[in-house]
């Protein structure tokens, strides 16, 4: 097999793993972001304090350190995750924390009249948040969320540190066999750039699809 044939077949295996990581992490991190934001804005003092502390902690720690703690330090406390799930947990916690900041800002930016109107229609607090506040807040937070998803795609390469055979890991392994770093790592770089660009375009499409005329941020 030629260098490129072998390289491509390697890369594809890793790429699939990367896509698996992202397929799990993207929806979960968005859910966590929404949950944390709601907890901080609508929770009682204890809940909002816990959620706020969680966000501050995760935003202050480098993702590498979070990942290494989840995989290498938590087993000491009897909490064990296989590599793939350790990576997923670290990525979701980190990205969710960052995303929640955008969602929280968006919730805060929604006119109080919306909330009053929902209450006067007899909605419960839960109904109000789920049906009135969050659909608007999510749309407003979407550009920020998109940014975080792009970061998530790039930082998914850190999963190699705990032994997940994702895109960067296979590239690095292949380089140790062939030692042609320029071809190998620049191809890898372009694949990541490709994924990031596709994600940017896709989320822009979603933004346009979800847009409600007249609701634009003023």
């Amino acid at each position, binding site marked *: 097999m030629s260098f490129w044939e072998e390289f491509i077949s390697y890369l594809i295996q890793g790429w699939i793993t990367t896509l698996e990581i992202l397929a799990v992490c993207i929806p979960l991190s968005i859910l966590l972001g929404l949950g944390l934001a709601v907890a901080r804005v609508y929770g009682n003092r204890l809940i909002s304090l816990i959620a706020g502390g969680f966000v501050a*902690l995760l*935003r*202050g*720690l*480098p*993702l*590498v*350190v*979070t990942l*290494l*703690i989840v995989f*290498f*330090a938590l*087993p*000491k*406390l009897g909490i064990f995750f296989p590599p793939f799930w350790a990576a997923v947990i670290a990525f979701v916690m980190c990205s969710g924390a960052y995303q929640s900041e955008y969602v929280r800002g968006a919730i805060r930016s929604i006119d109080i009249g919306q909330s009053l109107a929902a209450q006067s229609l007899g909605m419960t607090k839960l109904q109000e948040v789920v049906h009135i506040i969050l659909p608007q807040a999510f749309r407003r937070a979407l550009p920020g969320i998109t940014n975080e998803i*792009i970061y998530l795609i*790039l*930082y*998914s*390469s*850190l999963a*190699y*540190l705990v032994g997940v055979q994702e895109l*960067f890991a296979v*590239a*690095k392994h292949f*380089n140790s066999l062939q030692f042609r*770093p*320029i071809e*190998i*790592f*620049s191809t*890898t*770089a372009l694949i*990541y*750039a490709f994924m*990031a*660009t596709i994600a940017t375009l896709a989320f822009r499409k979603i933004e346009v699809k979800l847009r409600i005329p007249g609701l634009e941020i003023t």
Partner: protein
Amino acid sequence: MVTVWDYLPYILEGVWWTLGLVGGGLLLGFAIGLPLAVAQVYGNRILKGLVEVYAWFFRSVPLLVLLFLFYWGIFPALGYKLDPLTCSILVLGFRSGGYQSQIFRGAMQSISEGQFIAARTLGMSNSQAIRHIILPQTLRIAIPGWANEYAIILKDSAICFVLGVMEILTRTRYVVMATLEPLLPYFIAGGLFILLTYGGTKLVNIVYEKTRIPGLIGRM
């Protein structure tokens, strides 16, 4: 019996290396990002295109891949055999240049066009107008974005442990291996990073308030 606490000074020494990575990366990123931003806003079409490609590339490739690409591939191919610290600073700087160019571009574009036109009417040349009127405002407006960039590059600097730069995380991992005690060293490292993140961000915000010109739009 050697405990983790005996290694504390050893880990703390890594703070200087981390700050070296961050300081070097931020400065190089500034030296690259500011001219790129000027080129993107005031340059001709070719210049704009080149800046866009540069910013796109460095903002869409993981730091991990860039570090390996430059350390094992590009620098050796160009005939430079760089030590891990220098290579890491350069890569962090190139990448930060891409991010900072976007921060400065945003700040520059938030300044009303009338300012530039007024400067030209007063007889200033293009470059005088940019240097004396646009840039002083741009830099002030960009400070909050810059604080953000500091926090990002600080946390990314930890990734440079893959090349063996003796920063906080590398040392932490050595301590874990020496003591076979993973919990405490990682918590110490985490605590140091949190302290540096929030401490540094606070410092930059003080600079922002100090240099703020009342009435200038830069409220972000």
